[in-house]
């Protein structure tokens, strides 16, 4: 009889330990920030206030709002966050009030789908108050946490970007010579160095400020036009302080380059 009681007690203790181990101290439904797709995530919806952006995989290609193709690297990064995110630490009500509520920081609501099934819904508050750049909640009424991607100990807040251009390829110019009708290069600090290139009947001509120039090398003009096939930029400066942004917007640029397409579109 004593042996039977001892075995029952041991089984009960083991079961209790297993249950305790599998439970999150914060409640699993309120503290799990990653999605677990059966195969793969196929749609991500981001919304903030009245703005909304959808990334959806269609025929193997990720589209921004169902239209233009998204940068693969940016999509891969947000998918990594959405499938691997773990809690780094809880956030106290005092810190949440100071960093989010008092600053009226509006969250980015994120919904993750596989086909028509919603896998996960989270709220991302971007903040500079921690190195991970975020405080997240599962719902408005649940506890806030700092979330990170194990093995990627850096700021993940900027990945939840609502602006379509963030997801587009990083290209300043992306036009074939056949698509270009004119180029205007303005050197704002040395106006005598400015020039224009105009296409007339499949031939490019070089112009200065006072009209068409003579004696230039047409091969160099053709080569210059070909450079506009792809001029990339490195990254968006979304983290630029507002004061710097205002100062730059009010100042004169070093160069101003305008490319007009055959259809009249200006870049």
């Amino acid at each position, binding site marked *: 009889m004593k042996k039977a009681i001892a075995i029952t007690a041991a089984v009960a203790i083991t079961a209790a330990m297993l249950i305790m181990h599998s439970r999150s101290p914060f409640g699993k439904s309120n503290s799990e920030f990653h999605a677990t797709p059966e195969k793969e995530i196929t749609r991500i919806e981001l919304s903030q206030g009245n703005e909304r952006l959808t990334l959806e995989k269609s025929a193997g290609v990720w589209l921004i709002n169902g239209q233009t193709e998204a940068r693969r690297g940016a999509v891969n990064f947000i998918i990594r966050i959405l499938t691997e995110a773990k809690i780094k630490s809880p956030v106290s009500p005092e810190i949440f009030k100071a960093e989010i509520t008092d600053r009226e920081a509006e969250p980015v609501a994120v919904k993750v789908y596989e086909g028509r099934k919603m896998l996960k819904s989270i709220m991302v508050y971007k903040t500079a108050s921690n190195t991970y750049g975020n405080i997240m909640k599962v719902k408005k009424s649940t506890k806030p946490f700092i979330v990170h991607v194990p093995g990627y100990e850096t700021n993940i807040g900027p990945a939840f970007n609502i*602006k379509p*251009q963030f997801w587009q390829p*990083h290209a*300043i*110019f992306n036009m074939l010579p056949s698509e270009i009708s004119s180029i205007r*290069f303005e*050197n704002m600090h*040395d106006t*005598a*160095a*400015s*020039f224009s290139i105009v296409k007339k009947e499949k031939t490019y001509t*070089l112009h*200065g400020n006072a009209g068409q*120039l003579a*004696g*230039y*090398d047409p091969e*160099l*003009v053709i080569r*210059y036009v070909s*450079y*506009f096939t792809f*001029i*990339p*930029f*490195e*990254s*968006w*400066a*979304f983290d*630029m302080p507002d004061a710097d*942004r205002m100062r*730059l*917007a009010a100042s004169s640029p*070093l*160069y101003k*380059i305008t490319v007009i397409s055959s259809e009249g579109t*200006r*870049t």
Partner: protein
Amino acid sequence: MKTENNSQAVDTDKLIGSLGTNTDFFNVRYFDIDPVLKKRPYFFGKYK
């Protein structure tokens, strides 16, 4: 750009740009934009 001791320094390898009158600025490396930053004499074979 920020340095290791958190002070600000000028990154001479990069420029700031914007498209049109947009104030969404981007960082561009000189290496990438350099091919289209030419002066007029370039087309006369002076800086080939």
